[in-house]
């Protein structure tokens, strides 16, 4: 096992898949000469050349569509958005072209493209550069949506995404690039659509993904130490297809559920999880499911306000207290 950053784990995944399959290429802003705005593509231009590591002008809709068109004729593009905030300019190509092409062509044109880049709230970047898009894309049939929390998952899931024949929206955590974790030296993939229990527990299920996994794990440690509550932390890893069985299985065991995400509350990922849980685990619930989300506001710049707007271990603990009725009426 090597200890790698999330960034380097992604870099390895790209490098290995480009070595493995000549149809895989990387395209996006600053991916080549600049070595990647977040250095995920470091060294790839040197190894693979300009045809396979393509610097684009600032034209998200254009190069997203170019990726879809290349996928229509059999290439496997990896389209990097410098951040998902800018991908709103390309959402027509992602939703109207990539997601629907297979269906509206009656199965003739699969689109094996990966759209990837950093997302989620960052630090003091203000309203337009600090937001989560999981639920936007997860809403769309035809798209798969992946949001890894660890270097291990990041590498294994990116490799699976590149090999998948459907369009994948791969949301990297902007705040996760520097985190370190163990990554095997040997070849491995993490299948899409499988959640992972990051911590076993018996009293409450905390469902989370991406950055909120570390938030939830911190909360779980404190719950154990301070309240003698054993929390099970379920990392969704893939938002769509959602591993409902893993979540429901955990809730059957714990009878209580809290869902954590950085995105806004309305119609968020957690809303979907709650829907599945109430239907599949109704008779197992001892309390209404609680959600911990980003505040329902555009992200403020001010540090203190920003902290209030993001999910925190305190927020998760408060939600766990509610589902375990520690707070009485």
């Amino acid at each position, binding site marked *: 096992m090597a200890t790698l950053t999330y960034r380097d784990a992604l870099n390895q995944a790209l490098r290995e898949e480009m070595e493995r399959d000549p149809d895989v290429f990387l395209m996006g802003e600053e991916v080549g000469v600049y070595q990647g705005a977040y250095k995920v593509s470091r060294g790839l231009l040197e190894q693979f050349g300009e045809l396979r590591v393509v610097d684009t*002008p600032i034209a998200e809709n254009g190069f997203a569509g170019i990726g879809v068109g290349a996928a*229509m004729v059999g290439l496997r593009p990896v389209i990097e958005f410098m951040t998902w905030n800018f991908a709103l300019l390309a959402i*027509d*190509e992602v939703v109207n*072209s990539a997601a629907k092409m*297979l269906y*509206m*062509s009656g199965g003739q044109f699969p689109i094996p493209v990966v759209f990837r880049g950093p997302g989620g709230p960052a630090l003091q970047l203000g309203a337009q550069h600090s937001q989560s898009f999981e639920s936007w894309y997860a809403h769309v049939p*035809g798209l798969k949506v992946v949001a890894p929390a660890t270097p291990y998952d990041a590498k294994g899931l990116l490799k699976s995404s590149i090999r998948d024949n459907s369009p994948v929206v791969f949301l990297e955590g902007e705040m996760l690039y520097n985190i370190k974790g163990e990554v095997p030296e040997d070849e491995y993939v993490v299948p899409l659509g499988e959640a992972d229990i990051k911590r076993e527990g018996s009293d409450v299920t905390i469902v989370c993904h991406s950055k909120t996994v570390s938030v939830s794990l911190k909360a779980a440690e404190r719950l154990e130490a301070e309240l003698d509550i054993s929390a099970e932390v379920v990392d969704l890893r893939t938002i769509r297809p959602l591993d409902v069985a893993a979540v429901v299985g955990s809730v059957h065991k714990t009878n209580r559920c809290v869902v954590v995400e950085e995105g806004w509350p309305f119609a968020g990922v957690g809303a979907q999880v709650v829907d599945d849980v109430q239907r599949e685990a109704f008779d197992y619930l001892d309390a209404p499911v609680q959600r911990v989300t980003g505040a329902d506001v555009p992200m403020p710049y001010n540090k203190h306000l920003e902290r209030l707007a993001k999910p925190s271990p305190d927020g998760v603990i408060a939600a766990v207290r509610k589902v375990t009725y520690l707070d009485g009426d």
Partner: protein
Amino acid sequence: MAQPYPDTYLDPERAGFYRDLLRQMLLVRHFEEKAGESYAQGKIGGFCHLYIGQEAVATGALSAVREDDYVFAGYREHAHILLRGTEPGSVMAELFGRADGCSGGKGGSMHMFDAERNFLGGHGIVGAHLPLAAGAAFAIKYRGTDQIAICFFGEAAVNIGAFHETLNMAALWELPVVFVVENNRYGMGTALERAAAVWDVYRRACSYDMAEEIVDGMDVLAVHETTVRAVERAREEQAPTLIEARTYRYMGHSMADPIHGHYRTKEELEEQKKKDPIRRLEKRLVADGLMGEDDIKQMGRDVLAEVEEAVQFAEESPDPGPETLYTDVYAD
């Protein structure tokens, strides 16, 4: 404006080619007339944009590309898929929403596809398929083959961001792609002059240092020759071209619209019809002695019979089964 052939002269050695062009235009014309009739009978639903009047553009241009070239079109694309050789029955069945349609009944009028014939849609969002065509051209360059991609769209699409982003990258990266603007003068009900600061659409190419062509879109031979040049430029020099073909649609924007509406006059429509691309080629073929009036009438009857067969095929084709509702959402 390029007119390589004066109306008074045709090359007798290419008589067969001319007859093919005429037959193709007649097929499109009769197919679209039948589609209009079927729409009026409630057999076709949703939006349905007919190509009547513009036949020379797709016919001339697509007669200049190879079978292994990639073809993209917008939502007024019944002609383009027919001209790629897709069975008229399969195209009509798609309009009818039937299982034997070229998209299995799940695409409809705006989303026709035929992978086997390299017809890559059939796209309903104005301008959104321009990047797709550039993507296919990128793949050609990536693989180093000598194919090209050709992309059809209306003049209203040149005002959208995707047009500029795509032309810029196509020129910058020297992609083998031909962009064909079918300038029928109206984006839905808005005249070009009311929507664009620059009225000569082909001049947009100079922003991207791209080759440009302007052609009479009511003259199928002129469109053909112009496209031949552009295709050669793409295939041999990996240089994209923007072709503006000036044409006219006889019908409303879609079947939901009146034929001339408030935005144009009946007189304008009648004046344009005098330049009808089919009648024009017929006259020249007769004048030059390459076809007789009777030949032409017989050709029309044959084509009509073919279209009737297509309608019959579509009517007999079953609806897609309910089990297909959830198929083809994700690839295996």
